[in-house]
């Protein structure tokens, strides 16, 4: 709106200026940039290009290194994408090495989904509490605390998982190891809760005050207003929050490396050990010979991860844009 107004006045200025010969009027309407301003614009443009270029280069690099696995060469038969993602035989260091990554993919997906399942109600509940129930004072106290929680290094949460949660699970449930899918999901959920809560709180606060007032004025209680007005209007933002939380859980490495148990198997229960993609990459990259098939396979895993998180982020972006348009 504002921009189009601006353009409009500029055009008017140009027309009337050229008609009447007041050429100086044009300059008052569209000030000339000083060299310093021009310079800083150029600087920001370069920054933007660098950031984009870097992203692009990472992608090219990933795919280039990974591609060797899928192209047949003397001494290394090509692996099909279907075998890579669909077979469960990740034996990268055997003499007859096989690279079926299904168990790793299953590990990633199970941990990400279960942790999101745990974190979503808590994160959304916390957001609802912060934006609708808490007094001004409590909100001012809690919101920064939630955001602070997001900055706890994941390795510390991993330590908690190893030293506290794992022995507890092992004893309480009498299972062989406390380092498993459940443990990793709980710790990842703790990590994702601040992300989800903070983004969701933003989404809830962005719901126009006047429709909340309308709801109260019709005799709705606070909870009825949350359920019937605020939640539906904030749905896009909330979905975005959850998806970004999911993306975060998918990409998180340190926690799963420490507490997921590391067994490359398709889990049958919540208390099986798993080995997500990220943990595999971090654990095995140091040992893989550069340029070898194992190395290529790990890059292929990286590419899968990259594309998945990219897809999630695009989806989140798309959702938040679409809902904003609908409002």
């Amino acid at each position, binding site marked *: 709106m504002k921009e189009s107004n601006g353009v409009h006045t500029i055009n008017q200025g140009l027309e009337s200026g050229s008609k009447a010969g007041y050429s100086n009027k044009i300059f008052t309407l569209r000030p000339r940039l000083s060299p310093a301003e021009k310079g800083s614009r150029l600087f920001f443009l370069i920054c933007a290009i660098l950031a984009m270029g870097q992203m692009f280069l990472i992608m090219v690099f990933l795919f280039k290194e990974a591609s060797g696995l899928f192209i047949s060469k003397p001494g290394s038969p090509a692996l099909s994408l279907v075998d890579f993602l669909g077979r469960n035989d990740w034996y990268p260091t055997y003499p007859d090495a096989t690279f079926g990554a299904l168990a790793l993919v299953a590990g990633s997906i199970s941990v990400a989904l279960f942790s999101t399942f745990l974190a979503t109600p808590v994160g959304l509940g916390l957001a609802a509490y912060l934006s609708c129930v808490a007094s001004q004072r409590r909100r001012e106290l809690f919101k920064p605390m939630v955001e602070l929680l997001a900055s706890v290094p994941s390795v510390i949460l991993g330590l908690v998982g190893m030293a506290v949660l794992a022995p507890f699970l092992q004893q309480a449930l009498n299972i062989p190891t406390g380092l498993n899918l459940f443990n990793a999901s709980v710790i990842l959920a703790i990590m994702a809760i601040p992300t989800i809560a903070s983004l969701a709180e933003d989404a809830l606060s962005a719901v126009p005050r006047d429709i909340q007032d309308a709801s109260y*004025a019709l005799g709705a209680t606070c909870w009825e207003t949350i359920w019937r007005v605020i939640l539906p209007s904030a749905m896009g933002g909330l979905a975005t929050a959850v998806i970004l939380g999911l993306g975060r859980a998918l990409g998180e490495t340190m926690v799963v490396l420490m507490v997921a148990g590391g067994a490359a198997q398709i889990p049958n229960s919540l208390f099986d050990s798993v080995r997500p993609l990220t943990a595999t990459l971090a654990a095995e990259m140091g040992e893989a010979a550069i340029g070898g098939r194992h190395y290529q396979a790990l890059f292929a895993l990286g590419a899968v991860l990259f594309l998945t998180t990219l897809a999630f982020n695009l989806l989140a972006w798309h959702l938040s844009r679409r809902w904003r348009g609908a409002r």
Partner: protein
Amino acid sequence: MVKPPAISARSVSFYYGEFQALRDINLEIAKDEITALIGPSGCGKSTFLKLLNRMNDFVPGARLSGEIIIGGVNVYGPQADPVEIRRKVGMVFQKPNPFPKSIYDNICYGPRLVGVKKKSALDEVVEKALKAAALWDDVKDKLNKSAFELSGGQQQRVCIARALALEPDILLMDEPTSALDPIATAKVEEWIKQSKLSIVIVTHNMQQAARISHGTAFFYMGELIEFAPTLTLFTSPKESRTENYITGRFG
């Protein structure tokens, strides 16, 4: 026989934190009549209006002294339930604020809250409320369209219908036509004039107050300066401040 007043405010003072927005207001609002609140910007009209259905409860640090009696009960008494009060005392806001839902769901919002579920009952409520707000003919074929697809005037009438769906005893309107064009304004005014409700309307438009209201209250800097039958207030105000305001000398 004299009807009891719809609303009586007794020595009402109201504070936003340290700031006193209303000073010792005493006002009896007649039943089934239209009462206009006028006064310069910031004098406390909206504040007073929102006190009547407890919409100021949400303002942190707000305080009130005095009583507001509606239907024989002190709205701020220990027994009073704000939810109950807001159902009896409907409100229409300055800016049309329909929910981002269909027209039908907008109207049904209040009734659904009180537990009306049956489709046939809801259909009836919707038709009645929309007819009452003079909107039925405009929208009867597009009840399932989003209320956002209507014009501003139609949206405001959806908001009126939405409030009417709860069959309130009293309707509060805060500058309900300030966002509307003359034609839509005329429609809303027409509706107000023929309705049989007790209506309290805030307006900056003195012609509007003169056209539609029975009684007019003039507020100035948090005080109620003068309250009289509309004709009297506009033709022979007692207070010089009222006269200055209505003749446009300040405000």
